[in-house]
């Protein structure tokens, strides 16, 4: 019923518009005819419509410019918090703001001039357009000014870009030569449909080797009935034995470099940490690496947000102010299939390395919990299992 009403209203609306169009066209020709008949040449249809549209253009300009700046301010508190939680992220944000000031000025000035001209020079019967075909001086001016502006933005942009992506693993540029107290946190994130496998090294601080071949993935799976998608060399490389696999939360430590090796199993994914200004594609068969230094722990960041009105509002789902339950998040930004939108994980930044170690020590390595038993079950079966096995062989024979 409601669909029918909506449809009827729409049809009526379109019919109404259609007849408004027809009638105004007819009335225009009548007015024109009358004016000609009376010998009155003061009526000019083009002047009439240009006037209306000239004023509409002016109104549009005011409304549009007002809404675009007002809207930006209005939604600013709801945007991703503008405080970047990484050293390079703050550089990138400065670059964003630099670009914003330049472009906002261009946007504002050109729009005002554009619509002012539309209004000022709207058709008048007695006006003759000014024949002005070219001016090399003007062209040079408005080639040079944008060129200088772009040169400035490219130059500053490249500096920010290089600071982000060409630093080496020693991080001496941030910490000086002696940074033994700034132990980097290395980790590996692998995207798959639809989630992330996150692997941390254990106490030995190094990740176990991966060998991507038939033997380490397919044969291992077939032999031990345990998937080994990453191709970790469980049997010949003992550094893998204390590796930790993380379920729902990725962990970093404030002020300590994070070195993230990103990859993917099946299709492209993209590792995106919005608050840290980190984005790197995960490509099957091609490892990528991204490095950054978080600046605030989760607790500190919540504290900072608690001063903002939007974050003080009560979250209906939890009944607490929004800032209290704030968490950094990981998202996927490369279309990867039907649940692309659901590849979420939380990110936690610890205040100190000790907290990180405490968490690390409380975990059971995957090798101990899962891999070792699976290998043992096949390679050194217990008596019970042998009996079971023989029984099943018997059964198969029969």
């Amino acid at each position, binding site marked *: 019923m409601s*669909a029918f009403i909506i449809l009827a209203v729409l049809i009526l609306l379109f019919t109404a518009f259609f007849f408004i*169009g027809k009638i*105004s*066209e007819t009335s225009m020709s009548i007015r024109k005819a009358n004016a000609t008949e009376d010998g009155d040449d003061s009526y000019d*249809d*083009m002047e009439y*419509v*240009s006037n209306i*549209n*000239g004023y509409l*253009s002016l109104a549009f300009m005011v409304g*549009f410019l007002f809404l675009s700046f007002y*809207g*930006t301010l209005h*939604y600013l508190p709801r*945007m*991703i918090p503008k405080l970047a939680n990484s050293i390079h*992220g703050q550089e*990138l944000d400065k*670059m964003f703001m630099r*670009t914003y000031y330049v472009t906002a000025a*261009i*946007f504002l000035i050109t729009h005002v*001039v*554009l*619509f002012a001209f539309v209004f000022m*020079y709207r*058709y008048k019967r007695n006006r*003759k*357009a*000014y024949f*002005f*075909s070219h001016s090399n001086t003007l*062209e040079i001016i408005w*080639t040079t000014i944008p*060129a200088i502006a772009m040169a400035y933005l*490219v130059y500053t942009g*490249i500096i920010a*870009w290089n600071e*982000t992506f060409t630093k080496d693993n020693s991080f001496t540029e941030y910490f000086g030569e002696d940074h033994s107290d700034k132990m980097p946190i290395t980790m590996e994130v692998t995207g798959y449909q639809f989630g992330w496998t996150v692997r941390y090294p254990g106490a030995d601080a190094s990740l176990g080797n991966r060998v991507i*071949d038939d033997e380490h993935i397919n044969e291992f799976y077939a032999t031990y009935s345990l*998937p080994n998608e990453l191709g970790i060399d469980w049997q010949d490389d003992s550094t893998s034995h204390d590796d930790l696999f993380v379920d729902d939360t990725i962990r970093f430590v404030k002020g300590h470099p994070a070195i993230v090796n990103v990859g993917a199993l*099946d299709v492209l994914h993209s590792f995106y940490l*919005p608050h840290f200004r980190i984005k*790197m*594609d995960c490509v*099957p*068969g*091609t490892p990528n690496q991204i490095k950054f230094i978080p600046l605030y722990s989760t607790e500190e960041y919540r504290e900072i947000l608690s001063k903002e009105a939007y974050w003080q509002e009560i979250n209906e789902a939890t009944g607490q102010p929004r800032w209290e339950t704030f*968490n950094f998040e990981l*998202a996927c*930004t*490369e*279309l990867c*299939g*039907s649940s*692309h*939108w*659901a590849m*979420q994980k939380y990110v936690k930044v610890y205040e100190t390395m000790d907290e990180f170690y405490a968490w690390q020590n409380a975990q059971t390595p995957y090798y101990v919990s899962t891999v070792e038993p699976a290998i043992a079950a096949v390679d050194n079966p217990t008596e019970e299992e042998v009996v079971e096995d023989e029984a099943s062989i018997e059964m198969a024979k029969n």
Partner: protein
Amino acid sequence: MADLTANPTVVNPNHEGQVDHGHDHGHHDDHHHEETFLTKYIFSMDHKIISKQFLITGIFWAFIGGAMSLLFRLQLAWPESTFPFMETLLGRWAEGGQLSPDFYYALVTIHGTVLVFFVLTGGLSGTFANFLIPLQIGARDMASPMMNMLSYWFFFAASFVMFGSLFIETGPASGGWTAYPPLNGMRDIAVNKGSGLGFDLWLTSISLFIVSSLLGGLNYISTVINLRTRGMTLSRLPLVIWALMFAAILGVLAFPALLSAAVLLEFDRLLDTSFFLNNIVINGELLAYKGGSPILYQHLFWFLGHPEVYIIIIPAMGIVSDVMSVHARKPIFGYKAMLISMLAIVVIGFFVWAHHMFVTGMSPVLGVVFAIFTLLIAVPSAIKTFNWITTLWRGNLRLTVPMLFCIGFVSLFITGGVTGIFLGNPAVDVQLHDTYFVVAHFHIIMGVAAFFGMWAGVYHWFPKMFGRHMNRTLGYIHFWVTMVSAYLVFFPMHFMTGFPRRYWSFTNFETFNTMGNLQAIITIAAFVVFAAQILFLINFFYSIFRGRPVTEQNPWGATTLEWTTPIRPGHGNWAGDIPTVHRWAYDYSTDNGDVGQHVPMKEGEAAH
């Protein structure tokens, strides 16, 4: 509409000094031979009919693509609501009235594909290159009318295959209009519903479209180069012809790269080659693909993909330049600067493709190179913008419907252009890449702005195409509603900076679930835009058959050659000889009034 009694030269039907053009064999004037509906309207070789075929097919796809966007906008605005009509319409793709993620991605994919390729490439270049090139350069038809007809029918075949793919069991392609492997690189492995038969059809359709585009493009280029009438030197060509030729050159050079990508991708899918695939593990099992690179596909794709946006926007720029000049009653400001900047965009446009790939892990040094070229393109773009604005300065602006669309185009070009300066800078792009900021940017600049160029062209040349006027009031309503609500759709997307695009729902994330009713506002505005287009559709088709007949040969008072043809030109365009050209296309408001290109120079008159 325009009162030209003061400038009788423009409509002067006496073309003094006309000579028979070398390619004119005279028999074109003969309209008496038998023409059936089939030969006149379907398998026509008349460039004007082919142009209308492109236009109407483009309009068809614009409505399909637009309607698709409404469906997925509903899901984005109200992710937790159900719409029973959707189940009626889509069946199992929207069980319970909620769009399934699979079909959401299919809609997003097909929306992007058809709007970029079928509407804004086929519909825009196909329509106006076919219509304007022979009429404005003074030719009876295209260099190869047969190739031209084939160009349309390949486009039709591409459309047919794409449309058919909407109805197959596994659904149409759903891996994004960029069709990246490995998501789209494996046929029989169920990584994605739309990556099976749906994607085969998608590749087939795009390949057919590329053939169409190449046949058309080669034809446009050779026609402009070879068939210009006497006196129509290159420097007297209207800017829109230059623009259409540049777009054709871009297409001819760039589309083959996409074709090669499509063919190699289909090899990977059907023959298990590994051009784009390497070390893929699915369900715990390592597949046999070895040594390919998914990133290589992106290089090939964007080698077309970026010039493609110029293939879309350059014809719109050309149309706007010329239509604006006519209605401002002023020459376009800085013809040569406009031309050089367009050429600069064409050339630099080939060296910027990897700015779509800043975060793929490619060398940061490469990022610097592409950043420099990308921001360099802002310079010619700025020149063009300032020249348009200066064209308005001290004009006598007839604010007709096509003129308003030109002004709207400039506004959109600025708004969408400045956000490109953010995205072209890799340092800023890291955060913005693949987020709503990008969606806002390209929809404004190559979506809405290109559409505005197209509408300016349709409203301006409609009297020439169909011998009737479109209803002006409906045109004004169409313009203002579209202008306001299209901005309402896309401007607020800038506020969602950093929110990933192509998300079926944001409810899983605290970070992206903060915007309250903004998505709903956008969706409502999208419905209003669509409604305005229905009004346009009514106006368009009603006016073809019942619009006010054109009574003046040159209703806008333009100077270009198409307005020297009869009101309803037959195949061959000019009943008599083709006019000779004596001047550039922009002699508006000179000391001698507005002077058509076919009018000889007066003694002592200086050429421009």
